[in-house]
């Protein structure tokens, strides 16, 4: 199960939520809230679930606006909390450094429309409104300066957004997926981003376990904790698409965006 030399992951049994399926009530202040592994995992899974739901709203019949708004508000709430915890910024930047396949990004671009709406709902800081494909580079620079505040990161990135308006849809949550769940990619990502995250680790020991998932043993622990194999949003989308054409009326717009993003990816990656 565990490879040799693997550190036992940080977990706080005292913060274990009461019921199996519920993230549980939030503590009064962010400082008092301990990032228990179980809580953050459940929060993450709730976030993933919400994003999938927003995606699947696009059907033949016009989606239920009330439901979409409620889900988008939930996503925003989770993102706000993760921003306060500092986990949001870490994941956003770590994922931007990863080479995510374009089609996955496109799949979530549709999601981003809703989340973008929630994101820009008059909240500052806005950790997810300004991220572009080049964000990885810039955020690494910022982090190297030792500043982990999301506000500073935001302001330094904002000039970038107009250039990559379509890519600005590629905000944080979706990028979490591959880096958390894709074993192939996380090795690359961890190598490239480790230097930048070093300062993070020293400040947030609790977060170390989020990104020291180089080896597959993390997933074993994850499975042990939750009792279920984790399936990210992309796995679900892939399995959906493998069942034949889904009733996505926005497929045509997705395709044009896909070409656009492909193009942008090529420019940036320089391939």
């Amino acid at each position, binding site marked *: 199960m565990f490879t040799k030399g693997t550190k036992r992951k940080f977990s706080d049994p005292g913060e274990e939520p*009461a*019921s199996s*399926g*519920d*993230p*549980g*009530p*939030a503590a*009064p202040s962010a400082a008092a809230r301990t990032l228990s592994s179980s809580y953050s995992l*459940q*929060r993450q899974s*709730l976030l993933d*679930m919400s994003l999938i*739901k927003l995606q699947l709203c696009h059907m*033949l*019949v*016009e989606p*239920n*606006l*009330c*439901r979409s*708004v*409620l889900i*988008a*508000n*939930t996503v925003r*709430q*989770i993102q706000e909390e993760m921003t306060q915890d500092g986990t949001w910024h870490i994941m956003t930047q770590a994922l931007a450094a990863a080479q995510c396949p374009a089609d996955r990004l496109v799949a979530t671009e549709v999601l981003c429309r809703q989340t*973008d*709406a*929630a994101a*820009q*709902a*008059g909240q500052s800081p806005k950790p997810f409104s300004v991220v572009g494909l080049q964000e990885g580079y810039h955020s690494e620079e910022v982090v190297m300066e030792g500043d982990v505040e999301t506000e500073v990161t935001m302001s330094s990135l904002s000039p970038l957004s107009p250039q990559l308006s379509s890519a600005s849809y590629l905000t944080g949550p979706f990028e979490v997926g591959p880096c958390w769940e894709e074993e192939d990619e996380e090795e690359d990502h961890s190598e490239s981003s480790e230097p930048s995250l070093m300062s993070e680790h020293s400040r947030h020991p609790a977060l170390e376990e989020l990104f020291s998932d180089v080896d597959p043993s993390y997933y074993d622990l994850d499975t042990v904790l939750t009792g279920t194999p984790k399936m990210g949003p992309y796995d679900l989308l892939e399995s959906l698409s493998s069942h034949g054409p889904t009733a996505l*009326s926005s497929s045509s717009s997705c395709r044009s965006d896909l070409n656009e993003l492909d193009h942008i990816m090529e420019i940036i990656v320089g391939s």
Partner: protein
Amino acid sequence: MAGKIVFEGRKGIHLLFLVCVCVMWCFSQVKGAIDEDVAEADIISTVEFNYSGELLATGDKGGRVVIFQHEQESKNRPHLRGEYNVYSTFQSHEPEFDYLKSLEIEEKINKIRWLPQQNAAHFLLSTNDKTIKLWKISERDKRAEGYNLKDEDGRLRDPFRITSLRVPVLMPMDLMVEASPRRIFANAHTYHINSISVNSDHETYLSADDLRINLWHLEITDRSFNIVDIKPANMEELTEVITAAECHPHQCNVFVYSSSKGTIRLCDMRAAALCDRHSKFFEEPEDPSSRSFFSEIISSISDVKFSHSGRYMMTRDYLSVKVWDLNMENRPVETYQVHEYLRSKLCSLYENDCIFDKFECCWNGSDSAIMTGSYNNFFRMFDRNTRRDITLEASRESSKPRATLKPRKVSTGGKRKKDEISVDSLDFNKKILHTAWHPKENVIAVAATNNLYIFQDKIN
């Protein structure tokens, strides 16, 4: 009618009206197919008694309206209340296609509201997501015979053959109930209509979608007044939608609308043409100890109903029913837990989308009791005076004629008593979203997927 008990007390003879929870509810009828395979089109989407209770209308996902009529009690069996039998069936709405958005417009009937009866015919408003229709339901039991220009089978007679004139005579015929669309109110809603409500002036009505409320005159179909608009300039800033709206039963200038954030706004149409500013704002402060990521979703109000008296209103959110005094805005006067045992299951209910189910609620005729639905084909009744509540089930098993319904109980603790059902055994596909209470008698109609159950109190 409510049963009466007369007893002699110290202060003389007291007359006690049986409160509705003490009423023994028994099965009366069930309408709909018995098949396990339910056709989606047959799923009932709205239930409504008319003002006298003589007629009971249902709408379904297939766009059809079925009206049942209360038969008179037969003299032979006076202990039986009359039954409801099919009076009229018609296709109200058809599926449409919005070419501009490349989206289907469902034919599902979202709401039916009766108009007060003014002549022999009956009128009702039925609506789907986009279009409201006024239907006239009239009876025909006479037919004219002896026309001059056409034969009995309708063929035109050769004018040269007509040698004499006669006056047509009205002859009785088998009763025929006709439904005809008298008005079609279309193209006024960009978003999905969730409510319609007839005003007490009997001339106007309001229709509400996710972001706007329009006021119509029943005679005018090409125009409506927009009285509430909560659409933000930038749709990306949208965080709240309208979930239900209703006109005050007596004050034709007052209406309320509820939101997905658990708030209710009361508006006075005399104050301004656009009622974006409310006259009263009802919201209960949140309990910080029970805050979770689902707090907002479960606070979203799915239904709002004024009491018949017009002094109270009732709101339904995911886990509870609240009664508000219109004179007190900061909290409800009564709160009833419908299925509190679901609070620990919210994550699963979010996953399977049940958390977004919109339950309705209704008052009885005297405003002394309220009713709402739950899962597993359970429905709940609360007596406001005695604070007692009861859980009943609409099922085929308890569908024997005049069989008394047995109260049900969901076991929340570890130990499950006999006859109790555990939370994990509940069938979340069997949900009772729509219920209606007869305006004058203890007769209730409960829609369970594709079946309509009618229950009544036991008459001794």
